[in-house]
């Protein structure tokens, strides 16, 4: 069975290592924070100026002066630090962030990503996505394998305006875990009960399928 968004987030959480500084994008990536393994310290960065973002506040804790980059009210963990946007993007640009997880509308077999604009429809802006993908050491895309029309989002080349070039390292979808390699998408794991045939059918970009593809373990 294909994973739901919580399953995707759970699988991404397995990529976390103790002590990592992590930036999570809006949507499925935000859910990853709920699945940090016990006994592991992960510091979440929010690009509007937080290191050490904590969970949502209780009603009593809500502070209008404290939000995350998704404009949601949040809390700070003990040991958090605050700064301004210029410094925040300085640490992003300087490669201090260990892992960036973000959503995408399309990913190409070369690791290009498109996630900010659909020409002719509303342009909301790229926010911090272009800065993050241009500088992060390790970028994981969390998304559904196909769009709502059932069309593949893993393509030979992106058709939408790009956010960044050759930057994605790994894609984790409802169907599979794929690594971007010089030869295309390497199928590393598949969702339990999903066939390699289905993944092949729903991947338009070049797909490399080893003989034995293990199931995703959550």
């Amino acid at each position, binding site marked *: 069975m294909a994973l739901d968004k919580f399953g995707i987030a759970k699988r991404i959480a397995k990529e976390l290592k103790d002590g990592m500084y992590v930036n999570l994008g809006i949507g499925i990536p935000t859910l990853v924070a709920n699945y940090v393994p016990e006994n592991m310290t992960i510091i979440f960065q929010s690009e509007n100026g937080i290191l050490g973002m904590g969970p949502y506040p209780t009603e009593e804790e809500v502070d209008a002066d404290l939000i995350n980059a998704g*404009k949601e009210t949040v809390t700070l963990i003990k040991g958090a630090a605050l700064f301004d946007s*210029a410094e925040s993007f300085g640490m992003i640009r300087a490669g201090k962030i260990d892992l960036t997880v973000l959503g995408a509308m399309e990913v190409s077999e070369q690791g290009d990503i498109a996630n900010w604009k659909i020409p002719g429809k509303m342009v909301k802006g790229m*926010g911090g996505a272009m800065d993050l993908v241009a500088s992060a050491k390790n970028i994981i895309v969390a998304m559904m394998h196909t769009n709502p029309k059932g069309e593949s989002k893993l393509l030979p080349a992106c058709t939408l305006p790009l956010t960044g070039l050759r930057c994605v390292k790994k894609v984790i979808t409802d169907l599979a875990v794929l690594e971007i390699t010089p030869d295309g998408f390497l199928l590393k794991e598949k969702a339990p009960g999903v066939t390699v045939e289905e993944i092949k059918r729903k991947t338009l970009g070049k797909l490399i399928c080893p003989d034995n593809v293990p199931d995703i373990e959550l």
Partner: protein
Amino acid sequence: MNKVVSNAQEAIQPIESGSTIMLGGFGLNGIPENCIAALVQKGINQLTCISNNAGVDDFGLGLLLQKKQIKKMISSYVGENAEFERQLLNGELEVDLIPQGTLATRIQMAAMGIPAFYTPAGFGTEVAFGKEVRYFNNKPYLMELALHADFAIVKAWKGDTMGNLVFRKTTRNFSTSMAKAGNITIAEVEHLVQPGEIDPDDVHVAGIYVHKIFQGVNYEKRIEKRTVKIVNK
């Protein structure tokens, strides 16, 4: 030295139609509510506004958009505002969308007197059109220019009569750089105090950058997305 003015109307008095204004804030977080209201009331137009976001339909810069006082927005993300979308699609509004880190650093460079810098953000995308590309250590970078403004308007938590500013929680965002980048900087504060009441170690923006300061009133501090923890009782 007299930087203190009595209210927002007096502070924005030198701002005229056609001005370029930086406005601090991230979403509705830490926006200069008093000065935005005064700009709406003054009715000047043809403004170029540099702000990470464009407010929401009925608050923040959305109020200036409603009255069609803005000619051009320079922002990184404008997705929370339907009136913005309508004006953009009708060709009533110009917009320049800039990657958020590039926007922050362009403002910071203006604050530091540096005319340009190189960043990898946007290389290979439509953001790169018309920009100089240079390679450093075999990596491509775009040249981006410092971003200046006639006026910068920020809201701080606390300020003293010499113009020193202290911000609270995530409200520093774009405001600290903008405050230093404006040709004329206006600060509205929740608490206006006397010199000596702010520990020099705590100052986020030194008074040299601030030209006018006033004690703001009636802060709404609207929350865009009120998310709370579900507590099982």
